[in-house]
């Protein structure tokens, strides 16, 4: 038997495709029921994105990717870090305040700010990890609570840290000066748009690579995956599960801390009340959709970014509510979760059948007389 079983691969790819098809079908039903123009909607959907839209989609996917990786680190351990949202906001704020002080010059300021973000996210998530390990508090509950606390804590601190800009009603931290900004990556010559990709897309790719490398190539990653697959077996194999829970929560939070960085250094140059929000929750959906796989998540993040980007076209081009995008996203997540579980079961059954069949064939070859008997 080969390592990459084509049937298993096909099954793996079929699940999300089927789920997306089902979602499109269900959405059409909803459109028909609401009396909206199905044709115009799908025309908007399948229109090739303009160059500037491609940039927007990839940029959106970049932050979603980081968020989904943070969520996936927890998922791999059977830990549900619902708190990526709070973690990244705390971290973005801390990094924005730090970077805005310009205690360090240029790139050094950026690098140390990134470390500040990682640490803040890690500490925030570490609270939930500590509560779980020390007090047995479910990480689902504690991270949701910490999201609320993060909201109010950041709002409170932002009041103190805010820098007033004459004529503006927005509240935000000090603007990071030119020398500590990460320049965008221009795709000039490939597609025609002055817009640029976030320079920190490189960071997202690096995080994705590290995620893959640590999980599949290191002892630590093995212990982490083993704990996720079977906590009891991991304990018996010598994994200190409590330590793993705390560590993976901290690492997940550290990754979450980076979510806002492409925005901070590549677009907003400050943290305030108009920065993109809700990325942590979207990350959960993207991680589910991408099956916690570093490449799968990349595709899922692009799909998510693509769908988000549609909300304007649907309103302006097709004249339907942008809420349709939320409906489709919701349906896709649910269909995908169902499809994955079904295909996982089907895959296991397929393999068991094949093992039984191959062994039977082997036996028949080795002991032809037993068949006769």
């Amino acid at each position, binding site marked *: 038997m080969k390592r990459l079983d084509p049937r298993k691969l096909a099954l793996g790819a079929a699940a999300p495709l089927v789920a997306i098809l089902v979602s499109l079908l269900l959405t059409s039903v909803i459109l028909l029921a609401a009396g909206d123009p199905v044709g115009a909607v799908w025309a908007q959907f399948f229109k090739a994105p303009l160059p500037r839209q491609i940039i927007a989609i990839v940029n959106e996917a970049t932050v979603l990717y980081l968020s989904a990786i943070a969520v996936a680190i927890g998922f791999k351990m059977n830990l549900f870090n619902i708190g990526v949202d709070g973690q990244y906001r705390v971290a973005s704020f801390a990094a924005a305040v730090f970077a805005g002080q310009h205690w360090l010059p240029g790139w050094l300021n950026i690098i140390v700010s990134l470390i500040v973000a990682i640490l803040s996210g890690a500490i925030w998530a570490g609270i939930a990890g500590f509560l779980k390990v020390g007090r047995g508090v479910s990480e689902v509950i504690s991270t949701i609570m910490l999201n609320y606390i993060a909201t109010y804590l950041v709002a409170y601190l932002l009041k103190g840290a805010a820098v007033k800009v004459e004529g503006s009603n927005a509240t935000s931290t000090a603007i990071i000066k030119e020398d500590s900004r990460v320049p965008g990556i221009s795709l000039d010559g490939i597609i025609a748009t002055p817009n640029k990709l976030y320079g920190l897309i490189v960071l997202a790719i690096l995080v994705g690579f590290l995620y893959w490398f640590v999980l599949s190539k290191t002892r630590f990653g*093995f212990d982490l995956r*083993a704990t996720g697959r079977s906590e009891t*077996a991991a304990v*018996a*194999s*010598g*994994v200190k599960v409590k330590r793993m829970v705390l560590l993976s929560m901290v690492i997940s939070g550290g990754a979450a801390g980076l979510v806002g960085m492409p925005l901070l250094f590549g677009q907003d140059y400050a943290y305030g009340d108009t920065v993109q929000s809700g990325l942590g929750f979207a990350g959960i959906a993207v991680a589910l959709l991408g099956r916690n796989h570093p490449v799968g998540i990349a595709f899922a993040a692009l799909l998510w970014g693509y769908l988000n980007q549609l909300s304007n076209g649907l309103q302006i081009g097709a004249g339907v509510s942008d809420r349709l995008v939320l409906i489709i996203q919701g349906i896709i997540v649910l269909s995908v979760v169902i499809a994955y579980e079904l295909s996982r079961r089907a895959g296991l059954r397929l393999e*068991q*059948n094949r093992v039984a069949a191959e062994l039977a064939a*082997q036996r028949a070859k080795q002991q032809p007389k037993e068949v006769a008997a």
Partner: protein
Amino acid sequence: MAVELHGITKRFPGVVANKDIELSVRRGTVHAIVGENGAGKSTLMKILYGVQQPDEGTIAVNGQQLTLKSPTDAIKAGIGMVFQHFMLADNLTVRENVVLGAEKLHGIGDAASAEIRRISDAYGLDVEPDDLVADLGVGARQRIEILKVLYRGAKILILDEPTAVLVPQEVTELFNNLRELKAEGLTVMFISHKLDEVLSVADDITVIRRGTTVAEVDPKTVNARQLAELMVGSALPSPQTEESTVTDRPVLTIQGVDLAGGAGRRKVLDGIDLTIHAGEIVGIAGVEGNGQAELVEVIMGMREPTSGQVFLEGTDISDWQVREIREAGVGYIPEDRHRHGLLLESPLWENRILGHQTQAPNVKGQLIDAKSAKADTERIVKDYDVRTPSIHVTAGSLSGGNQQKLIIGREMSHAPKVLVAAHPTRGVDVGAQSSIWDLIKTARRNGLAVLLISADLEELVGLSDTIRVILRGKLSGAFDPDTVTREELGSAMTGAAGAASAAGAGTTRHTDSTSDGGTP
């Protein structure tokens, strides 16, 4: 005929299912269904109890053809099932447990109590409705389970491996109950692979092998050996102790180990003293739940003893972590391999790494050395005869015996000094069983100190150099497997026959070693 099954076929992936089952059960008899583990007995019974539906074939109860879609249908048809694992709430009384889910029959009050007493008297079950289940022993709990089924009006009872959890004296009691049920006109279907028991109680015996019925025999005309050979389809293996390889070099020494229970409970382990020498197999007998699992957890470092020490070749390892203990050379065959020994959804080569994540050939520094681990998995598959098409299939797709051989191969690949084997042949087929026995004997020959925990007395007697019995967290004195009888062990396991069998109970560690040394 109470039950007639005709041409029952049930297909499952990867396991022996049922194929063309033919079975006729006469009313008012005890009908035994025997077969080795994994032969398809339990699947068949689940089909009869409506838990699973057959792909082909017909079921007739009292001459009437039925389709059983759920246990509710089966109960309506007068079929009741007593599962191997009891489903009783400890903190409720017998009456509350019995009426739970059947409140409509006789209410939940005095009428129910009266009905429970009536059934108990009619069949000699000796069940008192107001007793708290927590206070009752295993035998009594089983009788409650039987009563629960009778209370719901069952005329046909299915008992799935009812004796697995009982000691010999309780088995005798159970069989007396079954005879009473039979005398009252009820039909009992009795699943077992313990042939002596089957022969003593059954009126008819149906043998299942590889998912199909191969013979119906009369217990008066066969002996246990013939029956066993029918089950296996070939000559029967049995564990045979070889010449003693016991040395006087202690490898694993346990001194005065206590493990506290929950608040207000008695100790789970109570003054355990045990020495295992190089080349020695010490067998631990006992009814499940008397501290065997905890003893293993203490040795493996999953729990720290409340007091006392564990020494590995003279080094105190009582407060070491699991990983350190495994690295120091303690191999572990866990009682429940699915929960503690394998990652069922991971490929075999990753399972080969499990438990040895820090050791060559699995790792190089902090990195997993997948190439070497895979090569070594191929070696284990070959050397230990793990039947698998590839090392890339998930562990869950292998049969139990092959999973166990993989675990043993893995544990033996790191030059262990001690092997802790908990129920090493539970749930594996006969072929794999004898090769696992051989592997354990090889380990002993190679000078390992082996702790063997088993519920199978035959296995213990056949493999061990010394047998100790564990009861309520305490170890009895040493028994010589060559001379001990099943009754002696049974008495020690229940603590029933006090003084006689507990003769060696006061022996110290010192006398242990002398008696061990003296066991040829």
